[in-house]
């Protein structure tokens, strides 16, 4: 490739469409499928109506969600299309109405289930990214843009809330659903730990597998205080016999030796016994039946939630969880035996970027939950006062709108993060471009974190090696390289798995047609 071609490519990367491309792609994916995914996760809103004698239960079914383009509602009640410049000048929010199919369904116990009311109703307003698919200026020519008072050179990629332009900062997180092995010290001794941030539908659970100084493996996960013996846990998950447990961890003779030590120290021998012993941990002092119920619930709910999948049996998921734990155990042992090195947290393969669409998805999820709670409350109240139940009177669209706009306006995101949205830096044109392509590490700037601030070799071609602020944020705030390409999550995991299988990837022997573990190297 000669110098001319290189220049052409370089210029392409600097075109208006490319500069905020990552924001557009991410937000468009959120509008296109992310919102519907969140609604489908929720699926129904249950109510307490029907708990009393002689009352028929009521629930709400959520259907298709639809966003139109930004509109403004005037005081006289008329509704018109809104363009970004008008939103900026009038200090209003550039947001589009969101509609959702909702059906109130009554009955199910004595009577047949019947639909009381079903309509598509406005559930709130979604702030729209300037320049995205649902933006009113999408596809405009330069002349048309000038006609409506827009700057044709403006890259877009930000939101307008109450007249101020806000960018959502891309944040750099540790990759979820991956096994990271590292060494740690506990009571002065070196121990080996395998960590996984298991993430599914906005729920994040840290699972730790530790090899303590006496060589015993312990696992800790949310909802269980302290840690659980590894062998007990895999037995509870259905991996019962000694031989199978050892075989699943590794065939390496030295690791087998370590595993035998663990098995010797095992408290229980059977799956039933293991679940019982887990029950005593999670619900001590309760009745035995409740303990068992609680133990099963904890295993299915809080342990490695990312291994759950639509349409896969609870049984298969459990055995998958057991295999996954075995992989974590293997990582610990290998690290102890110096067969591998500790994983590098700063390696870019172990990082994932949360762009505006992902952030909006988190926001929409909590906003929808809040709306659901409100709908439940309104329904129960309407029912208590013997009112006719109708979709339009139980949905208060302010609830969702408020929850979506407020975090963007203030930067206080769900999950307690602050400074997620920032006022677009309009000092000069380059300032805007730089700001849209900035990314932030969630690490605290008041702590040293020397390794995290260092330039890492894997940032080559992705992150600009020189553009970073001086002072406390040095190395924590970074900027994308000019030719950076951001890949996106696949829309359909099932399809990806089939594709991988066709290319010759083999699943774990013993389980066919079920899922493949994510690669963890």
């Amino acid at each position, binding site marked *: 490739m000669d110098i001319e071609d290189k220049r052409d490519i370089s210029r392409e990367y600097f075109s208006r469409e490319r500069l905020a491309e990552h924001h557009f792609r991410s937000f468009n994916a959120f509008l296109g499928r992310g919102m519907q995914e969140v609604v489908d996760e929720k699926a129904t809103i249950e109510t307490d109506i029907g708990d009393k004698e002689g009352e028929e239960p009521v629930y709400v079914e959520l259907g298709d969600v639809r966003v139109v383009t930004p509109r403004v*509602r*005037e*005081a*006289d*009640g*008329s*509704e*018109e299309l809104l363009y970004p410049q008008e939103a900026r000048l009038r200090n209003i929010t550039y947001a589009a109405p969101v509609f959702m199919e909702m059906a109130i369904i009554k009955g199910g116990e004595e009577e047949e289930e019947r639909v009381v009311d079903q309509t598509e109703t406005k559930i709130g307003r979604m702030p729209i990214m300037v320049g995205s698919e649902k933006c009113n200026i999408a596809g405009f020519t330069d002349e048309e843009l000038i006609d409506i008072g827009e700057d044709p050179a403006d890259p877009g990629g930000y939101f307008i809330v109450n007249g101020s332009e806000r960018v959502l900062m891309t944040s750099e997180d540790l990759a979820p659903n991956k096994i990271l092995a590292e060494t740690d010290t506990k009571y002065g001794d070196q121990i080996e730990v395998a960590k996984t941030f298991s993430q599914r539908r906005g729920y994040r659970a840290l699972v730790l597998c530790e090899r303590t100084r006496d060589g015993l493996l312990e696992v800790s996960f949310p909802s269980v205080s302290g840690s659980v013996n590894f062998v007990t846990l895999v037995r509870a998950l259905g991996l019962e016999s000694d031989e199978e447990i050892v075989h699943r961890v590794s065939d390496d003779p030295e690791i087998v030796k370590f595993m035998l030590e663990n098995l010797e120290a095992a408290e229980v021998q059977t799956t039933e016994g293991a679940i019982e012993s887990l029950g005593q941990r999670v619900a001590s002092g309760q009745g035995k039946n409740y303990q068992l119920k609680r133990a099963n619930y904890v295993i299915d709910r809080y342990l490695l939630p990312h291994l759950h999948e639509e349409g896969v049996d609870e049984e298969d998921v459990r055995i998958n969880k057991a295999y996954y734990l075995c992989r974590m155990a293997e990582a610990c042992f290998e690290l102890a035996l110096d067969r591998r090195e500790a994983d590098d947290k700063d390696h870019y393969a172990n990082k994932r970027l949360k762009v505006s669409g992902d952030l909006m998805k988190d926001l929409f999820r909590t906003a929808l939950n809040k709306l659901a709670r409100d709908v439940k409350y*309104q329904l129960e109240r*309407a029912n208590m*006062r013997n*009112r*006719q139940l109708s979709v*339009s*009177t139980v949905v*208060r*669209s*302010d609830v969702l709108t408020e929850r979506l706009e407020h975090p963007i306006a203030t*930067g206080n995101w769900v999950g307690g993060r*602050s*400074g997620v949205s920032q006022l677009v830096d309009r000092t000069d044109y380059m300032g805007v471009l730089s700001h849209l392509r900035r990314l932030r590490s969630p690490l*605290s*700037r*008041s702590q040293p974190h020397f390794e995290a601030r260092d330039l890492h070799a894997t940032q080559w071609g992705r992150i600009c090696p020189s553009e970073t602020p001086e002072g406390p944020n040095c190395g924590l705030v970074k900027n994308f390289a000019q030719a950076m390409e951001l890949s996106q999550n696949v829309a359909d995991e099932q399809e990806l798995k089939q594709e991988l299988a066709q290319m010759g990837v083999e699943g774990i022997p013993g389980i066919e047609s079920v899922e493949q573990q994510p690669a963890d190297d």
Partner: protein
Amino acid sequence: MAATTQTCPECSGRLQADDCETVCAECGLVVEEHNIDPGPEWRSFADDETNPERTGAPLTRSRHDRGLSTEIGRSTRLKGRKRRRMARLRRQHKRTQIATKAERNRVYAFNEIDNVVTALSLPEDIQERACVLFESAQDEGLLQGRSLEGFAAAAVYATCRTATVSRTLPEVIGAARASREELDVAYDAMNRELGLPTGPIHPREYLARFASKLDLSQAVERRARELAERVREEGIDNGRNPSGVAAACLYTAAMEADCDLTQAEAADVADVTPVTLRSTYYDLTE
């Protein structure tokens, strides 16, 4: 305070206020400076756990306690027994906030007003005024034997009428949990006892809303506005439903501009029958 007078004390010019000072736009006199900024602290530290806001929410009439309530917050740092104790305190505290049945009714009605106002996308001051109206109705003892939902809906309807941002009765009923009868009873009672300052509704109040619902151009809407003024002057709208008259004005204007609009469509947005629309249309075109 000088800022509230709106004109310059020196030259009676127009005053212009920004974040920190009030200046006369004509002579440049600085009328007021160093205003107290009640907004949040502009600095934010990511690691700061304290709320940087310096003041609480403003007073509002749309809450039974005028927005002066104290709430017991939540903390994730509290664990076990202490956490349960805080939950109990919170519950007791919530119970003490509503002392009487009348207060409970007021809370319920204000909530209901909020629902209606939100559903109709009305501005916030309408909500405040509707709440004040409801309170005076309650103080007069009009609620006895009538429905709360009806009063809440009627308060919003009446406030809209007095603020000349009228909504039609079917529109309000569609957004409220009240039935037509409940609303009528409540509105009549308020009108009788409180002497609401409502005159006949001018058809132009409906024009903008109907025009945008029917997707009509600005020019058509402007022409319809002229027609509405003529209707009022000539007394054509005497004894007619103002929303029907508004629809007729829009229909007439649309016909003049050769727009594609049927009588049924126009009548539909106004919740009237095409017959109502037609009679005004004939009077207008004669």
